[in-house]
């Protein structure tokens, strides 16, 4: 109960500024769109209406139609579902793997720690686009591959922060007190350590959502990610780009949606970070 109150208090602080409030509003709108896409969408996103290609915005089609006469608004709304599910599942995977590896690195012997840190360095040093190409070459493009690629490249990010957090707390008196009481290592880590290191990691995760959304859009734009006819924002921009000479509306509208979502998430993430720990922001 108290945790809930603490979360609400943090949210209140984060939305106290104009940018925080704007970011939070966009965040909520995108989440709602992603969750209730079938309800919100005015049309079936995949329904073709070839007679009605490149229709301008109208009462029937709020944002017009694309080169196959599909309703652009509905496709954008469904795109939010894909963007959010890719972003959240990739980040959840990276957060889990990074936290486990980070805690291990902090508690392992010197040698074990070095192995994990070198692993982080190798992943981080590898150009993610080349990595993506290699993985797609082996497994072929799909939504699952996008999630895997993004999770892999984000893991070191979370791992390093988790390790640093554990190192500052490892010898904290309250953990020492647990040891003196005879608590097992697992109890110390899961009951006492984890809740105290999650705050910064969750903030980091929220700040990574827009990054992942753009990566997914980028990969899909290049044809390495989500496959057509699924309506990812990246494939929407790609479609619009191909038929730019016929109509400028699809590419501009889908690019704007992507930009607005990324901006909103970034603003909200930054406000959240400042609300949780103002020092992190100032040190940058």
């Amino acid at each position, binding site marked *: 109960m108290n945790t809930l109150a603490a979360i609400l208090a943090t949210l209140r602080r984060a939305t106290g500024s104009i940018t925080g409030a704007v970011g939070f509003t966009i965040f909520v709108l995108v989440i709602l769109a992603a969750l209730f896409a079938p309800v919100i969408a005015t049309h079936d996103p995949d329904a073709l209406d070839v007679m009605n290609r490149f229709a301008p915005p109208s009462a029937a089609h709020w944002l017009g139609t694309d080169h196959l006469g599909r309703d652009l608004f509905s496709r954008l709304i469904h795109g939010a579902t894909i963007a959010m599910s890719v972003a959240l599942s990739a980040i959840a995977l990276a957060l889990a793997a990074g936290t486990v590896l980070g805690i291990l690195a902090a508690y392992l012997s010197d040698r074990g720690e070095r192995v994990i840190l070198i692993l982080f360095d190798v992943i981080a040093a590898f150009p993610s686009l080349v990595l993506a190409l290699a993985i797609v070459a082996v497994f072929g493009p799909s939504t699952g591959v996008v999630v895997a690629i993004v999770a892999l490249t984000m893991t070191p990010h979370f791992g390093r922060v988790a390790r640093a957090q554990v190192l500052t707390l490892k010898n*904290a008196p309250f953990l020492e*007190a647990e040891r*003196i*009481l005879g608590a097992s290592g697992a109890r110390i880590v899961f009951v006492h350590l984890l809740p105290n290191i999650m705050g910064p990691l969750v903030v980091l995760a929220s700040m990574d959502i827009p990054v992942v959304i753009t990566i997914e859009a980028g990969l899909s734009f290049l044809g390495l990610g989500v496959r057509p006819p699924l309506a990812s924002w990246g494939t929407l921009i790609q479609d619009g780009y191909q038929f730019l000479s016929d109509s400028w509306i699809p590419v501009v509208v889908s690019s704007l949606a992507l930009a607005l979502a990324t901006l909103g998430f970034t603003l909200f993430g930054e406000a959240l970070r400042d609300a949780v720990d103002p020092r992190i922001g100032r040190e940058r």
Partner: protein
Amino acid sequence: MTDPAAPPLVSFEDVSVVFGGRVHALDHVDLTIARGEVLGLVGESGSGKTTLCRTLIGLTPLTTGWIRIGGAPLIETMAADPLGFRRRVQMLLQDAVASLSPRLTIGRTLEEPIAIHGLPREAARRRLDGLLARLGLPRDIVTKFPHQISGGQARRVGVARALMVEPDLIVADEPTAGLDVSVQGELLNLLMDLRRDLGLTYLLVSHNLNVIRRVTDRTAVMYLGQIVETAPTRDLFDRPAHPYAAALVSTNPAIDPKRRRRPIVLGGEIPSVVDLPSGCRFHTRCPVAQPRCAVDVPAEREVGPGRRVRCHFPFSLAPTAAADALLVAADAATAAAATP
């Protein structure tokens, strides 16, 4: 209070702890703690007090030597029944507020011993209620978080947590550090009442010599990883035998000017534990050091009933002999330094 013939509850037998092959944190420590006794431990920071406490609660392994608790080697007890060992030896950490999990309520923290040791819930809860009342903690403290309670309360919560497992021995590291003098007495009274009622034994570390003088039965003085003097507390303060102990107890100014004695001010800096002095470790600062002290390492020896000292030239135990001899020597040293 304690029977000298009974076997001690705790004995350190030639215990050494060396970190990284060169930091001699504990060096050939011999020490006993009788059942029901309060043993005080004093010394400067870096003298090994904290390491000694940590070896006794099994958090720092020994490099050589043995610690026995109730006759059995600590290392074997720990291996055979780790939780059973924890139920015998508990510790009060110095930073009481930081020793409470910041995201758990006091109630959750106090239930930790129940969960860890699988104590029968009903009996344990009754015990917890009884302890809260006994320690003068309000009932609603269990719903609070560590940052919402006072320093004195945090200390008593730490005591309650330790007592949940009904230990025999409590290691108290600076239990009054950071407490205002107006509440320090309350806590010390409580610790001593608990000793009487529950038959507890304490190892009490403090830099506050008034506290040591008041509540301990015997005191061990540490310097650079060694115990340089062990004596009944009264005797130590009245007639210290080791020059360092004499200097230490003299640095405690009384409020009343009529009772104030001149402190013996030592020269020089405390040497580093990495680069220890030859011979007697104290000879670089000792006002009465002789040439031999720089060469020969003094052994610990018995100088009186229950008194052991590690010095080639301990002071005679006649009253004030130590202070007078040291003051004369210190003055001579100051005079020598003043003339260019």
